[in-house]
């Protein structure tokens, strides 16, 4: 089945003065799917999103959102997408409802529709009770949800979320994931950036890993995990003294066995589900009691380490998207930019 791509990035490049923030990023997001743009701080995720949402002009390359080119028809792009930036950009002095109304009326939606949609969105994001309170009184999770609700007031077919769960506690994070899954089930195309591998694993159909401004890997979460090495068969025995017998039992049937006495674990290269079942049968017959037997896939963390040679979250930010400087240009380059800025951005 071929679907129209909802988002296409085509060789996006962004220079800030001498700094190359994004260096030729291309990918395609089919309609109704979720793309996770994964990378450490400073990888160029935010800059990529800013180019695709018409906030920043690419130095080279272009992107299309819902078929509209960001350079040739930015207005059509803006009509087709919603954006939730890194910092929750709700107006703190306005109530939840007023925030929704402001953005709704800027979209040119009619009043009755805005009222109805606001009620539905507040309900959906568990903000009904807080809808008439000013956003300043909201918790971090509530602000995020309101921010997302505001992006959805015009029900855009394409939604960009820049690190939607950064700074949220685990429970709020899981709640937000739930909401995002519902949106996708309803047909919305989602692009989300994240530095949390778990988040990409949970939500994304496809993952694009970027590091230092370039795409270093691409695929489904499963493919990426496969790429970084085989799965392992892990056997945990109940009694430590059984370890030796267990090792003797397994050795003829596997390529190698690694014993971790402390964890009472034996690890061997996996050779598929049937192989694991056979080994489980052998243990059953031998009378060695097991706590657990199973296949362990490498986590996306392992994948990231494998791909980049460094851990995803431990890398210090290098440039464009520090979480503390959300969705704006990095501070070191204000003097170099936009000499060739398109005319009419403000005065039109």
């Amino acid at each position: 089945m071929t679907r129209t791509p909802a988002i296409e990035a085509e060789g996006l490049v962004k220079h800030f003065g001498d700094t190359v923030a994004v260096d030729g990023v291309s990918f395609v997001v089919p309609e109704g799917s979720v793309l996770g743009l994964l990378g450490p701080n400073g990888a160029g995720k935010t800059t990529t999103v800013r180019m695709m949402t018409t906030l920043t002009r690419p130095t080279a390359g272009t992107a299309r959102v819902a078929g509209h080119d960001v350079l040739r028809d930015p207005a059509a792009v803006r009509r087709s997408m919603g954006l939730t930036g890194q910092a929750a950009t709700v107006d703190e002095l306005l109530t939840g409802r007023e925030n929704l109304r402001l953005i709704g009326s800027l979209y040119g939606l009619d009043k009755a529709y805005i009222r109805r949609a606001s009620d539905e969105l507040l309900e959906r994001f568990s903000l009904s009770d807080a809808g008439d309170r000013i956003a300043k009184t909201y918790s971090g999770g509530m602000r995020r949800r309101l921010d997302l609700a505001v992006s959805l007031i015009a029900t855009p077919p394409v939604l960009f979320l820049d690190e939607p769960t950064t700074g949220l506690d685990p429970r709020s994070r899981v709640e937000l994931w739930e909401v995002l899954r519902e949106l996708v089930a309803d047909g919305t195309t989602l692009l989300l950036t994240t530095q949390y591998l778990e988040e990409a694993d949970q939500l994304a159909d496809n993952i694009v890993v970027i590091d230092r401004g370039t795409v270093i890997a691409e695929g489904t979460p499963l493919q990426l995990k496969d790429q970084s090495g085989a799965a392992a068969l892990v056997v945990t025995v109940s009694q430590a003294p059984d370890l030796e017998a267990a090792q003797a039992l397994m050795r003829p049937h596997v390529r190698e066995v690694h014993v971790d006495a402390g964890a009472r674990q034996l690890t061997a290269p996996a050779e598929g589900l049937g192989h694991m079942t056979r080994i489980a049968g052998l243990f059953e017959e031998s009378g060695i009691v097991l706590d657990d037997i199973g296949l362990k896939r490498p986590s996306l963390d392992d994948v990231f380490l494998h791909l980049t040679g460094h851990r995803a979250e431990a890398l210090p930010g290098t440039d464009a998207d520090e979480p503390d400087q959300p969705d704006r240009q990095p501070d070191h380059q204000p003097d170099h930019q936009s000499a060739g800025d398109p005319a009419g951005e403000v005065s039109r």
Partner: protein
Amino acid sequence: MTTLERPEIRHTGLLTQSWAIARRNFLHIKRMPEMLMDVTIQPVMFVLLFAYVFGSSIDVATPAGYRAFLLAGIMAQTVAFASFIVAVGLTADLDKGIVDRMRSLPINPAAVLVGRSMSSLAHSSIGLVVMSLTGLVIGWRIHTNPLEAALGYLLLLGWGFAMIWVGIWVGSAMRSVEAVNGVMFATMFPITFLANTFAPTDRMPTFLRLVAEWNPISSLTQAVRVLWGNDQPLAEGAAFPMHHPIPFTIGWIILITAVVAPLAIRTFRRRTAD
């Protein structure tokens, strides 16, 4: 639910969009009435302070005395501070990502600035009303005809308009509200005091007097005084602008806007486009 209702996105004009943004700024004032202090309590305090504390030792030759003389000066100072309001508001919006959110919407990017200008002019107008009422209480009166009276207010608002561009410029260039406060205090206070706003210029040292009388704020103040009949006879050797304050004020408004507006738009665009 498998298909979502996608509402019609109607095309709206710059004015509708700007009004939506201005309305949001008014809501801010409603939530934080202390934002109006700069056009209410502060100028009233200045009026009272100058009228009663310093006023007794400042000699002016207007029929209604110093208080009538003072009022135009305070009003000129207050509209000059409109730049302050715009700059602080704009910097805060830029800093919090609100401007980016607006720019991601299908609206004219200028609506952010026009909306901010509309609310700023309303803000200044509130100040003019408050000060006029205060003035009436302490004995200030307009002695001319309604047309000239209206023209006086119009010049003040025109000045406020020019100052909006200064505010957009400073607001786009500064990185934090604190920086805006610092820059604006350091420039606007001396500019609005080194003028004929609070004391006649004719007894200032020669050099200072020259600076004060060529100060655009002095033209505005003098123009309003003339239009309202609150002026005193020009002192010997008054500088050229003091003899023709109305054309000078109009000229200054046009000149400041013509010079600063392109700079402001350029700085704003640089700040937001990358």
